[in-house]
């Protein structure tokens, strides 16, 4: 076992990432030195104002938008809430109908459920065994009351990338605003609001080595949307509240870095990821990869280990200093089964044995070796306790 004081092997980059040193360095001056309120008129606040606009430009550039289409929020969740509540209220026709998928993040799903209680109806589209939404199903679900379509760019649990451009095209043909939760996609897949045909796009800095507590909502020019947070005139009267200055600077820097190196990053991370997967498949019997074999985020592995339970795996790996998650970090500890794994049709015993390993900057080839050493032993150990696992000799592959 590794020494207590060694750094953990962090394989939960989909939950959150460390702030990159360059990003942190860019933020530092704005806490105590150039701390002026960007809305203030004096020259001292000009530094703040200009830095905010520069960051806005960086976010816009990273996703192919205009700076005036970027609005800063407190994170992916607020962006999702704003997009869905704000656009569906502004575009409501009759009772109001929203189309989304059954594999969305809770920030989307719980918001939709809230709107159901307010009188909206919501179609939660099924997905195939890989977690993909069928564009044909979206087209079929559209009614003349449909006021918003929201489908994520890439899934946070199983990494499946959705055919967003196709979905957006259908939405556009029906003149229905289209939102995508791109929180997991930024930095891992090219994101361009025009190519993707999206009108609204959510992103969150801490998923791509920026700070926590800051995100943005892209709102295409001309897309009607009601405010979510009322108050002062910040963000062109669309999102009230004193600007999170260092956060905004950090978001701008982080997205610039992330967008500049998608290819290099995914090659690096994807290479390690592939070796990790091959090693696990090789060493551990009775496992299955969840999600799409190719159309998935380069950093994501979601693997079901039959006969054992995910949380138990997580805890034993943690005892070896390895950080992974079961399902999304948010639902950890709730004991509920992942709605995503259920949606892709996983049998309960496979869904419960799922573990997510998401790689990133923090990882090295040594980490892969280390996990490939520890993980098979952990699974073996838990299976030896499990009443479901066949006795050793009977198992496939051993």
């Amino acid at each position, binding site marked *: 076992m590794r020494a207590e004081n060694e750094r953990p092997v962090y394989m939960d980059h989909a939950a959150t990432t460390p702030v990159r040193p360059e990003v942190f360095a860019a933020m530092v001056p704005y806490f105590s030195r150039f701390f002026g309120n960007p809305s203030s008129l004096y020259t001292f606040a000009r530094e703040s104002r200009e830095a905010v606009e520069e960051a806005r430009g960086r976010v816009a550039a990273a996703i192919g938008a205009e700076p005036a289409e970027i609005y800063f929020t407190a994170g992916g969740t607020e962006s999702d809430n704003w997009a869905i509540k704000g656009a569906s209220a502004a575009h409501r026709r009759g009772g109001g109908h929203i189309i989304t998928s059954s594999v969305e993040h809770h920030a989307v799903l719980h918001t939709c459920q809230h709107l159901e209680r307010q009188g909206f109806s919501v179609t939660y589209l099924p997905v195939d065994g890989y977690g993909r939404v069928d564009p044909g199903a979206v087209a079929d679900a559209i009614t003349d009351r449909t006021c918003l379509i929201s489908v994520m760019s890439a899934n946070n649990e199983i990494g499946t990338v959705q055919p967003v451009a196709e979905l957006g095209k259908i939405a556009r043909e029906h003149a229905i605003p289209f939102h995508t939760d791109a929180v997991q996609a930024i930095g891992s897949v090219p994101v361009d609001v025009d190519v993707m045909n999206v009108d609204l796009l959510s992103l969150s800095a801490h998923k791509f080595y920026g700070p926590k507590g800051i995100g943005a909502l892209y709102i295409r020019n001309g897309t009607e949307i009601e405010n979510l947070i009322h108050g002062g005139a910040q963000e062109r009267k669309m999102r009230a509240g004193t600007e999170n200055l260092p956060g905004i600077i950090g978001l701008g820097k982080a997205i610039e870095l992330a967008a500049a190196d998608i290819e290099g990053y995914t090659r690096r991370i994807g290479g390690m990821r592939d070796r990790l997967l091959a090693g696990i498949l090789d060493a551990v019997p009775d496992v299955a990869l969840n999600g799409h074999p190719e159309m998935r985020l380069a950093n994501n592995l979601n693997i079901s280990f039959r*006969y*054992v*339970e*995910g*949380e*138990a795996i997580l*805890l*034993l790996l943690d*005892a070896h200093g390895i950080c992974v998650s079961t399902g999304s970090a948010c639902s950890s*500890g*709730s*004991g509920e*089964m992942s709605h995503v794994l259920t949606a892709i049709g996983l049998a*309960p*015993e496979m869904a*419960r044995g799922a573990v997510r390993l998401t790689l990133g900057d923090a990882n090295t080839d040594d980490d892969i070796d280390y996990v490939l050493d520890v993980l098979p032993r952990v699974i073996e150990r838990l299976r*030896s*306790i*499990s*009443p*479901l696992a066949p006795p050793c000799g009977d198992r496939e592959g051993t």
Partner: protein
Amino acid sequence: MYNELVMDHMLNPRNVGELADADGAGEARSASCGDVMKLYLAIDDGVITDVRFQTYGCGAAIASSSIATELIRGKTLDEAWYLSTHDVVNALGGLPEAKEHCSVLAEDAIRAAINDYLARNGLPARETAAGTCSDCCRHDDGSCPGPEKR
């Protein structure tokens, strides 16, 4: 989220395995989350002299199973029967609220194994029907009256 004792029982569960010549064996399944526990008892003169378990489930389920085996070893069947989930949770020094239901598994498995022993010996099964502690706790309504009030 778990305390050190729970983690210790999770990482180093006591009394894991099967008893080839068990005097009673029982299995419990949680309908809600799919946890499974198998329990094997060696019983001599109404006293549990040895015990083994196998559990499929989360950390709380494994730790509850492990500590429950420690709690009933050396106990009479009567004492073991009335071991409640509260006793298990208390012995572990507490479980997160969302995880308390996992400890019901051990209680159920113990009762199943005891009834298996009784059946093997031609004795009538004990009641585990509604109204017992096991049930009220499983329903998580916090209304368990404790054994003395039953």
